[in-house]
Structures are given as structure tokens and as C-alpha cells.
């Protein structure tokens, strides 16, 4: 009962925020040119949606973000396993290199890649993949280093060996911290996407914001910002859902 009441309050808070926004703008407490009322933002959103402008750009943005994100998952997890401490010499040498690489700002990479491949899709996807790889990798390494070794011993005691041990015991015990990394990366992917699209693109949501900024279409900026925020939220919820499905047995704090 209490739980239901809380959900109601949660929606109420969001609703109150929107109401305050609407009222403040309508009553000119804040300059309504700079912060247009929520209803007009929704109208702008509807107009953009009807004209097909929004859906096309959002589609392109989602495609870029997901491509980069999937690349980073595919690269980051094996890299994390490699650096997890099984080959200590490799680890010793690779750590400083990885430390330097993880500090290379994606936008430095962006400009360098533009020199080579031009302002195409590659720099944007590379920027996202580059940024998202590091949290996944670091969290995988962290998971391996803080693994419960008695579980591994128990597994091998039951006669599991090699790949079977890895799949049945090693993988599931690291997965929670891998998912922490994946969630952080999911957040990063949209952050980076928008910035990359603002710097050099002719399509996508970031470009849409830049374009509307140049046309002083404030309502459209807010509309695009709302869409981006909800896309990010949606991705976060999906990742959390997958996490809960996969790790139902682990209490995720």
C-alpha cells in the first residue's frame, strides 16, 4: 500500500515540476522568451514529430550511439578480462599504456580522426566507442580483482575445468560489476554523441539543437533536449531491465 502511494507521489513531484515551469513562464516570473512554457514546448515537439524532422534525426543519433556502445561492449569486456590479472607481466606493461589511453580526451581523437577519414560517420562512432570502452573495462578488471575465490575453488572442486569453469562460475560472478560499467557507458554514449554532433555533423539530435540555436528557435531546443534526456533515460532503463533479468539471483545494491 505504502509502495503504491510512493509511486503516486513520484509522479506528483514530476507533475509539480512541470506545473511550476508552466506557471513561472506564463506569469513572466522568468523570461518566457528564454524559458518557454512547457505546453508550447510540447507543441513544438509535436510539430517536429509531424514534419518527420525529429524522427529522422533521432533515428540517426540512436544508430550512432548504439553502434558505438555495442563496439565498446564488445571491445571493453574482453580487454578487461585480459587485464584482470591472469597474465601479470602483460598487466604490468599494459597498465601505464591503458592509463594514458583512458585519459586521451575523445575530442582529441575526434580531430585526429577527422584528419584521416574526413567528417564522416567514423569519427563520431569512434568517439562514442572510445569513451564507453573505459568504464566497462575498468569495472570488468575491478570485478575480477574483487572476485570471491572460494567460489572458483568450489567450482573446480566440483570438477569444472577451463571454459566450463569460466562460463559457469567466472562469468556470472563478475557480471554485476560489468553491468555497473555498462550502465555508466550507456550514460556516456549520449553525452558524447550530442557533443560530437554539435562539433561536426549535418544530421542527428545534436545538430538539431545547434541548428535551432542558430535560428533562435528556443522552443525547439527545449524539445530536442527533452527527447535526448528521455532517450538516455530509456537506455538506462533497458540496461537495468536486462541486468535484473540476468542477475536476478544477485541483490543489486
Amino acid at each position: 500500500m505504502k509502495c503504491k502511494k510512493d509511486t503516486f507521489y513520484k509522479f506528483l513531484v514530476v507533475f509539480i515540476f512541470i506545473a511550476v515551469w508552466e506557471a513561472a513562464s506564463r506569469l513572466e516570473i522568468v523570461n518566457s522568451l528564454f524559458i518557454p512554457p512547457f505546453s508550447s514546448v510540447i507543441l513544438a515537439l509535436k510539430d517536429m514529430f509531424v514534419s518527420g524532422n525529429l524522427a529522422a534525426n533521432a533515428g540517426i543519433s540512436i544508430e550512432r550511439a548504439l553502434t558505438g556502445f555495442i563496439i565498446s561492449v564488445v571491445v571493453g569486456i574482453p580487454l578487461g578480462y585480459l587485464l584482470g590479472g591472469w597474465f601479470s607481466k602483460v598487466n604490468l606493461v599494459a597498465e601505464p599504456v591503458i592509463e594514458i589511453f583512458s585519459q586521451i580526451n575523445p575530442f582529441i581523437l575526434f580531430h585526429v580522426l577527422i584528419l584521416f577519414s574526413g567528417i564522416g560517420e567514423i569519427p563520431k562512432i569512434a568517439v562514442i566507442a572510445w569513451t564507453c570502452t573505459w568504464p566497462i573495462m575498468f569495472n570488468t578488471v575491478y570485478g575480477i580483482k574483487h572476485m570471491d575465490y572460494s567460489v572458483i575453488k568450489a567450482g573446480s572442486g566440483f570438477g569444472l575445468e577451463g571454459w566450463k569453469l569460466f562460463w559457469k562460475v567466472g562469468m556470472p560472478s563478475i557480471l554485476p560489476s560489468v553491468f555497473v560499467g555498462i550502465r555508466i557507458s550507456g550514460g556516456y554514449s549520449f553525452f558524447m554523441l550530442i557533443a560530437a554532433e554539435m562539433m561536426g555533423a549535418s544530421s542527428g539530435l545534436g545538430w538539431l539543437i545547434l541548428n535551432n540555436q542558430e535560428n533562435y528557435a528556443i522552443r525547439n531546443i527545449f524539445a530536442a533536449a527533452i527527447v535526448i534526456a528521455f532517450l538516455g533515460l530509456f537506455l538506462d532503463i533497458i540496461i537495468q531491465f536486462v541486468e535484473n533479468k540476468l542477475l536476478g539471483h544477485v541483490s543489486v545494491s
Partner: protein
Amino acid sequence: MHEEIYEIKNYFQYYILRYSGVILILVLWQILPEVGLLDSQFIPPFSEVVVQLCELTLKSELMVHVAVSLWRVIMGLIIAAAAAIPLGLLLGGWLTRAADIVNPLFRIFSQVNPFSLMPIFILFFGIGEAAKLAVVAWVCLWPILYNTVSGVRRLDPVLIKTAMSMNTSKFEMLKKVVIPGAAPSIFLGLRIGVEMSFFMLISAEMIGATAGVGWLFHNSAMNNQIPRMYAAGVCIVILGIVLNRFLIYSQNKLFFWKGSTHVFSFAAWKKNVSGFSKIQLLFVVVVVSAVIAVGSYAAHVSKVSDINSNSSVQMKHMQMDKKEHDHMNMDKMDKNKTHDYMNMDK
């Protein structure tokens, strides 16, 4: 794994082995463009970049740009911390139910991209420092807030009960139990905030600024001064590493009673068993205040000169660029290149 590191008694050998990967990459960077496997116009050899870096440090105001960037990070962090830590303590400690209820709204907020807010920040604050500080503060705010709330919530209940049974007042409880207990988590939030905001700051400076290392990088990229661009890039990377190491170091120093949790072995390499000494503390305070002083001065100057004599500053830059030799060389190289291409066409 750590035991094995400790086994290598010879520090010299250890460091050679440890940084052999880095050295290999730098050597490759030097050799490949010189041999011609990589286009030396796009990737100049490492030595050229180092020369450029030295030149920038001595002749031009690289240090001022660094100070301006660091100033923005520090100021943004202070603003964010001033807002987020009290709010986090309040939500985590006393208004736990309210924290649950506000959570969805804050989750939506934290997903709002600082870059999509950039145009709106500019509308409110102008293209000055305030817009950049707002971006940095916005980015820092959420990790600090979340970590403060979770730090307070995960306090050992035994500690709180003990304090309550001793009839401590609420203020005493906050001062003696809650804040020290949540401090490691808060510091973790600060660290994440600094790292992310440094990330964001560089790109914010690229999009619109007149000073800072991000601007230096972007400006050189736009003017096609490739060695200068790489020099600025190397500078940003070094700055990032130093910042990161300093934060991990001070985390280990401040919370020496907790085990180090970083994944890399350098964090566990030397065990810090004490807090900061007074001299170290003094040093940190002096450096930070120097950065704040120089940065705020430089940021102010750049803003004023921007308003008063934007064109003259740019003219100066143009003249400086013309004086620089490698720019001229590059023009020549460009011509050679075009000749080559034409020959190839023939």
C-alpha cells in the same frame, strides 16, 4: 599479482619493464612518420611535438591556458559541491522518503545533457565564463549528489545507534558521525565529478571559448597547425593523468583507514598509512590558490580583451602565426604535396 610486484626488488628494472609499453609507443610514434609509413603531415614525429610543446611553454602562454582550464574545473566543482553536499546530506540522512520520491525527477535531470543546455546557459549567462562554469557545475552536481546520498544511507547503523544512545544532538551527530562516515563516498563523487567535468570542459572550450587548453587545441586544429595541435593534445593528456593521480593519491591519504579500491596497481603500490602532513597540505593549498588567482585573472583578461579589442587580438595571433617557422614550412610542404598529387595524376 601485487606480491609479484613487491618481489622485484630492483626498482630500476621494475620501472623499465613497467613503462616499456609507453616507451614502445613513443618510439613507434617517432619512427613511423619519419620512415613514411604514416603521413608525417598528419602525424608529426614525437620529437617535433615535444619541441612544439617546449616552444608553447616558453614563448606562448601555455601555462596560462592550463591555469584557466584548471580554474574552471575548480570553480565549477566548488559551486556543485556547495549545492550537492548539503542537499545530499539532507536527502540521505533525514528525508529518506522524500529522497525516494524525488529520485525519478533527479534521474531525468541527470540525463539532461549539458550540451543541450549550453544554448540556454548562453542565453542566461552570455558567452562568458559563467556559461562554461554552469556546464562544469551541472556535470559535477549529479555524481556528488548521488554519492553523498548513498554514502549517508550506507552508514553503519551501529555507529548511528551508538551515537543516539549517547544522546548526541542532531548537529553533533552530523558533525561527528554522518559527515566523517560518508566522507569516502562523497570524495568518490568529487573524483568522478572532476574527471567528467574535465572531459566536458575540454569540449565546452572547443565549442566556444577564448582561452584554455581545449581552445588551444581547437584553434590549432582549425588553423591546420598540426604539431601545435598535437602539443596541446599531449598537454591535455598529461594534465588529465596528473589530475587523476593526484585525486587517487589524496583519496588514499585522506581515507587511509579504508583499503584502496582502484583497479590499477599504482594505487596500491605504496601504502599510505598516514593523513596529509602539514607541509603537503600547505603545498596543495598554495597550488590551488595560485591556480585560482592566475586563472581568474587570465579568464577576466581574456573576456575584457574579447569585448574591447577582439579584432586586434586576432590580428596579433595572425602575426604570431606568420612568424612561426613551421607554419611557413607547412605551407611549403603543402605545395610539395600538391605537386606530388599532380604528378601522380599525370
